[in-house]
């Protein structure tokens, strides 16, 4: 393709953000990054949550850190020296956050410069944004080509996602895409959790993935091994699907938001436990 912008290589800078903390930004960054690398893409992950370093431990790379993001932008080390190569996938890299500095240690302009350098070397640059809407968030989107907003199907994270979407649009970035994380199909079928349609009705942005609530995320995070590399993990599959969609593949949304007859009841029936009264089910949450 004809590059008109001299600063740009072919890499895409994708920022993962949410507004609210604890909705799964870091887990999403680690897993989508691992899934992209597993598909043969060259990937670097940047932990932009300065002062609250976490992406390293989620990926099991916490013992390898010498230099960090602040060292890179301050010129204490060369870019290559701060990149930690993943132990499983040799085309996956991490630039960790500084643990003992604060958000003001990096400026939006420095992030733009860094992203431009990394575009020359990688297919995907994924930035794990800190929670909040202040400077850490501003830094995280400064060099972005596109933004993924992670939300959970509950009121506070959806409200914060709405706020973040407004800020991303105000920053003149393309309309962000949505990841609904920790969807529980059983609760949705009972009408006790907002469905995919409820959330997309409210937020009105395109959906790029739905990740089921899945304990394999807890166990894989305990071990520092991305669930996306575990073919048995349902959440891992959802993250692999997101990676496929980011590379332009048309993958149907795998987790139905509205189990028509109730997931648990079907499982129980298969296992021959419980009758119809076991789980009183009404309709799904869409209308």
């Amino acid at each position: 393709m004809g590059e008109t912008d001299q600063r740009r290589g072919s890499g895409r800078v994708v920022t993962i953000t949410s507004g609210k903390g604890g909705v799964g930004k870091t887990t999403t960054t680690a897993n989508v990054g691992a899934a992209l690398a597993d598909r043969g893409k060259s990937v670097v992950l940047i932990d932009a949550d300065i002062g609250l370093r976490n992406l390293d431990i989620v990926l099991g790379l916490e013992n390898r850190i010498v230099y960090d993001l602040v060292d890179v932008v301050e010129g204490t080390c060369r870019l290559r020296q701060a990149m930690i190569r993943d132990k499983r996938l040799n085309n996956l890299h991490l630039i960790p956050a500084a643990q003992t500095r604060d958000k003001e240690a990096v400026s939006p302009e420095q992030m733009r410069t860094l992203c431009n350098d990394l575009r020359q070397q990688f297919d995907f640059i994924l930035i794990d944004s800190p929670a909040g809407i202040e400077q850490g968030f501003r830094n995280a989107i400064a060099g972005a080509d596109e933004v993924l907003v992670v939300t959970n199907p509950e009121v506070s994270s959806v409200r914060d996602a709405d706020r973040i979407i407004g800020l991303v649009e105000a920053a003149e970035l393309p309309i962000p895409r949505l990841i609904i994380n920790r969807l529980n199909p059983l609760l949705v079928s009972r009408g006790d959790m907002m469905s995919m349609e409820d959330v997309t009705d409210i937020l009105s942005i395109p959906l790029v993935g739905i990740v089921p609530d899945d304990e394999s995320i807890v166990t894989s995070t305990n071990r520092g091994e991305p669930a996306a590399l575990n073919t048995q993990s349902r959440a891992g599959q959802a993250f692999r699907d997101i990676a496929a969609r980011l590379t332009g593949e048309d993958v149907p949304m795998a987790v139905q938001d509205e189990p028509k007859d109730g997931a648990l009841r079907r499982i129980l029936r298969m296992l021959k436990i419980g009758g119809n009264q076991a789980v009183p089910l009404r309709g799904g949450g869409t209308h």
Partner: protein
Amino acid sequence: MGFLNSVFGRGGKKSPPPSPHQSAHVAKQRLVEVLVQDHVKLTPDALAAIRADIIRSLSRHLDVDADQLQINITRNERGENLVANVPVRRSAGRRR
């Protein structure tokens, strides 16, 4: 995929509509209302006044179900849209 299909009920029977008492429905309604305020800076009082005005004005011509009136704010590329959904019981009939 057979297992997944049977678990997630693809092609299964259509679910009944949600009851307004279900908590997901309550969550969605509350979010819609709070986002109206966040976006348009409409206070609950102003929204209630808009609602009353819509009902009053439509009631002059139609038998509307005032309890079922829904006001939503939706977003598209051009900004916010206020959408009022007003169920009509029946036409009040042509004036003679």
